[in-house]
């Protein structure tokens, strides 16, 4: 398999950012509930992250993050779970998704194309205090950002980029992110593990429909076709309450990846942190994973626009009840 890429001259390349930004260390800028959405070259995406019941009760902040970015025809989706025992896990997660995305996309070469002038109403919103039923006092504090990007008209051309090169690019990006997290911890006079975070991502080319999914730590990247749902990346069984993190020295041993082609039968790919994965990976019911995948596709696609889908997703993540499920919940969905 190869990716269609071309040497970049930097002209006419554009991209968007939707999701969580780096948390301020001076004061909290991380919304408790956050959602984003958009459509890119025929592929829809929605992402949402909701603070868990435990963090709500303890007055802590959400420690999960998500980010969706594009560059040319590429779409990069990331979720991260700042490890609870780490002092600055949420900060680490926000650094990881933003730094890694920058590293990967900066060096990623895109197809030459031209940019049209038509305004396309795609946007992002972030709500603070959404989920008003949960915390009615915050209902009036909704804040949002709306962004519009000019529509890109890209020409598909052929130029092979091997899986090895792609994997090397990702590994290199992760390595730099690992180093960056450790250097940041040192600068903040914290231990290396203070910024411990998992990282799950999908880098996807919307032209060639080829992609690579990768994962360090717990959580799940789930692929869903008409009748079947399966983990796109091997699910590593950690001991309960333990996970691999990007800040540990041997993180490369825990890196799992899988290349994939988005065939017509594939309906959606979901990336989720363990707060959601734990609620769909284990029985009963017997076929819970497939039912979860099929239900989610149905519920997200029954509405016509991505904005409503994102609101529904965030509402659901904030409200659903499952036994012993108190963690932050984050999910990004890619679908057609």
């Amino acid at each position, binding site marked *: 398999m190869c990716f269609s890429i071309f040497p970049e001259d930097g002209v006419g390349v554009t991209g968007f950012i939707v999701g969580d930004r780096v948390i301020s260390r001076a004061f909290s800028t991380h919304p408790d509930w956050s959602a984003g959405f958009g459509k890119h070259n025929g592929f829809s995406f929605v992402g949402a992250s909701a603070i868990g019941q435990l963090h709500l009760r303890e007055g802590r902040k959400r420690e999960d993050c998500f980010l969706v970015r594009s560059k040319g025809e590429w779409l990069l989706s990331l979720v991260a779970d700042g490890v*609870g*025992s780490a002092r600055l896990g949420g900060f680490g997660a926000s650094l990881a998704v933003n730094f890694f995305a920058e590293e990967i996309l900066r060096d990623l070469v895109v197809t030459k194309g031209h940019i049209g002038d038509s305004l396309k109403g795609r946007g992002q919103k972030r709500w603070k205090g959404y989920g008003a039923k949960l915390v009615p006092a915050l*209902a009036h504090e909704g804040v949002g950002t709306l962004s519009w990007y000019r529509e890109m008209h890209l020409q598909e051309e052929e130029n092979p980029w091997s899986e090895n090169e792609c994997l090397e690019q990702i590994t290199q990006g992760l390595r730099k992110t690992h180093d960056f997290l450790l250097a940041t911890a040192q600068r903040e006079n914290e231990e290396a593990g203070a910024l411990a975070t998992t990282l799950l991502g999908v880098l996807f080319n919307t032209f060639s429909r080829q992609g690579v999914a990768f994962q360090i730590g717990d959580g799940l990247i789930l692929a869903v076709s008409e009748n079947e749902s399966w983990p796109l990346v091997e699910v590593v069984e950690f001991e309960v309450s333990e*996970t691999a993190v990007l800040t540990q020295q041997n993180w490369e041993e825990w890196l799992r990846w899988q290349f994939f082609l988005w065939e017509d039968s594939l309906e959606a790919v979901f990336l989720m942190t363990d707060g959601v994965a734990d609620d*769909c990976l*284990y029985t009963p019911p017997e076929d819970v994973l497939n039912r979860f995948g099929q239900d989610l596709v149905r519920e997200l696609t029954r509405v016509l626009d991505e904005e409503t889908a994102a609101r529904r997703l965030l509402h659901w993540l904030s409200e659903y009840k499952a036994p012993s499920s108190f963690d932050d919940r984050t999910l990004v969905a890619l679908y057609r």
Partner: protein
Amino acid sequence: MSGFVVDSNLAKMFILEFWMEVVDVEEGLEMDVTLGEGLRRLPVYLLLDTSGSMMGAPIQAVEEGLALFKREVEKDTFARETVWVSVIVFGREVENVTQGLIPVEKLEIPSLEAGGYTPLGAALRLLLDSLDRDVKKAVKGGEKGDWKPLVFILTDGKPTDDWKSPRLELLNRRERKVLNVITVGCGPDIDEGTLREIAVGPSFKMDADSASFAAFFRWVSQTVKAVSQSLSQPQGENTPAPMPVPPDVLQYIP
């Protein structure tokens, strides 16, 4: 003037809630998604010495302590849902009085009788049996696994049976990071050296008066609550379970 008074705050809350429901329906925010129904439990084992030397006030204090433990854990929303408990007594009888793990809300405080020797080894065997039988491991595509079991051993004397081999088995389990074991010796007959030999994890000693037992069981409840809400940790760090600072009556044995 007759009539009834409407609480304005209550009315506002009612209107707000009603409005939220309307918004939900209008915007169609509700989603129907199948979720796993399995529960991740925190197994808690209490191994309680009921030998003859516990007769009188100490055994009474242990009973009261158990009741306090149940009350405290039940008060906590998250702990109440996740904590499953097993009580093993060792004295004249060696018995798992709960017949395995049961939800904390179903724990009936047993009437304890002190008598006999201190067969800690037999109690450890019952513990190992229950760990094998009752604690669920996470299975890919199968059941959700339980959290690491939390084991408290309370004893007031030297073991009188073969306790070394079951202790070794327990130790091996702990080295595979599947257990948190806390040993507490109580009363004047406790020998620190023996306690250190018995211990599989951190060990403490305390007096055998009712205030000490109450403080111990309150601390057990706090530890259980803390662990039931404990957060994930990086793989391989093998950090011990988060324990609240023990009360002054508990002296740490290094």
